[in-house]
């Protein structure tokens, strides 16, 4: 094959790829927007801090300046640059949402599969405990946990993750109950696998898909919960650059006319949550 021919096949191949990518985009317009949003936030989280200054640097001479070409999002009452703080906060808010969803998925599925596959007393205890945890509205449970554990980022992450874990336990348990009856489980048992090996090597991977779908939605809710707690002064504390903290700090100035202090960080919270929700909605079957 000549070099020229190879180049031609190369371009056709990439053209087909492009076309099929376009097909996916056209089939899933809402999820595409979600992915784009998350990519933007991920870029801001990764690279943003390299391009902006110190988010804690105060400048009383320039307090509460309206947005301008020089200061895109204006300044807050301490003269801190709102854009700088908003960019730096992207890393914290994005990571917190993903880690909470990841933790709840991991712990929830491990427990859920064991409960569904082994059944018996263990299953009964797990189900009663999830009943009790679900007896509290999630936000209220997270609130009292952080109030007792103390204000810190890891404590908020653990508290919110605990509130969401029961959903994943229930989802994977229900799926594992169905998977337990499948033929490959019998085959694995006949092949001499131990029970825990069957549970975690065979049943678990086949029981995860509903949990992954739920994880995308939970990441979005977790972002809102963490920011909501921060707004109430619980968990992540000022002067840390976090969007919920920024809305709380700007709330009074917002209501006396300095709208930029709370408008921008709040909008970013909503956009990040929406990125996760758009993807979760598509994974859940979208139109179905």
């Amino acid at each position, binding site marked *: 094959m000549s070099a020229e021919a190879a180049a031609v096949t190369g371009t056709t191949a990439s053209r087909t790829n492009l076309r099929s990518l376009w097909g996916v985009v056209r089939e899933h317009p809402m999820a595409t927007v979600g992915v784009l949003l998350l990519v933007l936030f991920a870029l801001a989280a990764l690279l943003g801090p390299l391009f902006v200054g110190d988010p804690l640097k105060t400048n009383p001479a320039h307090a509460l300046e309206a947005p301008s070409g020089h200061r895109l999002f204006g300044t807050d009452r301490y003269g801190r640059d709102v854009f700088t703080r908003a960019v730096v906060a992207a890393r914290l808010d994005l990571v917190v949402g993903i880690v909470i969803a990841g933790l709840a998925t991991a712990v929830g599925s491990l427990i859920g599969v064991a409960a569904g596959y082994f059944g018996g007393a263990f299953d009964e205890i797990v189900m009663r405990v999830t009943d*009790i945890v679900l007896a509290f509205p*999630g936000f209220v449970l997270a609130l009292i946990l952080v109030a007792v554990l103390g204000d810190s980022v890891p404590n908020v992450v653990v508290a919110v993750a605990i509130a969401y874990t029961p959903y994943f336990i229930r989802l994977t348990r229900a799926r594992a109950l169905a998977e337990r009856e499948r033929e490959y489980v019998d085959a694995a048992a006949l092949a001499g696998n131990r029970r825990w090996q069957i549970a975690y090597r065979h049943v678990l991977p086949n029981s995860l898909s509903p949990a992954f779908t739920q994880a995308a939605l939970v990441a979005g809710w977790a972002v809102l919960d963490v920011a*909501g707690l921060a707004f109430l002064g619980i968990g992540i504390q000022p002067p840390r650059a976090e969007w919920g903290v920024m809305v709380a700090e700007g709330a009074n100035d917002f209501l006396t006319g300095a709208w930029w202090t709370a408008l921008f960080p709040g909008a970013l919270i909503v956009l990040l949550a929406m990125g996760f929700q758009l993807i979760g909605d598509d994974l859940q079957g979208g139109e179905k």
Partner: protein
Amino acid sequence: MTRFLARRLVTTALTLLGIVVVVFFVVRVLPGDAAVLRAGPYADAERLAQVRADYGLDKPLYEQFLSYMGGIFHGDLGTSTVSGGSVASELFSRLPASLEIGLYAVLLACLIGIPMGVLAAAHRGGWLDRIVRLGVIAASSMAMFWLGLLLIYFFFYRLGWFPAPIARLPADVGPPRHVTGLYTLDALLTGQAGLAWTVARSLMLPVLTLTVALVAPVMKIVRQSMIETLGSDYVRTARAMGVPERHILMRDGLRNALLPVVTAIGIVFGYMLGGNIIVETLFAWPGIGRYAYQSIQNNDLEALQGFVILVGVMYVLLNVVIDICYRLIDPRISVGGKARS
């Protein structure tokens, strides 16, 4: 039905007991030293000993638990460390204010969410369906505290349509005579239409804020269950027999889709009980959510724990009622099964 009720009673009692155990564990065992948490980080040894004696923290754990639970059975949720008053009576005096926002928000969310969900399902894949789906995603991505601020900014600060977000009534207006504790209802019952309107104007922004949070799950669940119903065998049969589409939608479809609506209302109440902390804080609304916020600010753990227990108990009892309704609508359904709160 009797057997169902008996079983439900037992599981409910177990869950209520579980709530007390969880809250006890969280506030007494988890912190390591519960006395330090109560006395604050700057307390000296003498003050710590005082706090231990006051709250019985020097006794063995099982004894603490028994006296704690005994108190709850007598409706005693402890004493506020800040006001010195009974937490239970402080909470119950604030409950009507919370219920007034919450009930209107749930009602409004159903009035908007159910028809939208039904219409979206009927025109599945069409432009209306797209709008409803986008609406669900937008509403479930909404940060309530930010939305509330925006509403206050536009409708109070800019346009002046609504009174200042400070409590249930403007400062120069007295409350109606106490009948139910819900000011709108009380004002109407005592024949003060003008006062009812004043009360309603103060209610509108907080109710609107909470409604946005509640409408998403209602629309989503109604739409999904309606789609399932419309794809079912009996609807296909009805169509084949020439029953008009409008009849199918309103008579067969909606009636069968009502079951998930009942579930949705249960879930929505859970959102409401969590969301009211943020809404009441924003609007300085004197309900239990603001009480919880203030108790956090004052490090008043007894008050916060009372709030959490009250909310947990209300939520469990509500779910019992919903289970019974469910059972009445559809006898085939067995006990259990609850979705996200």
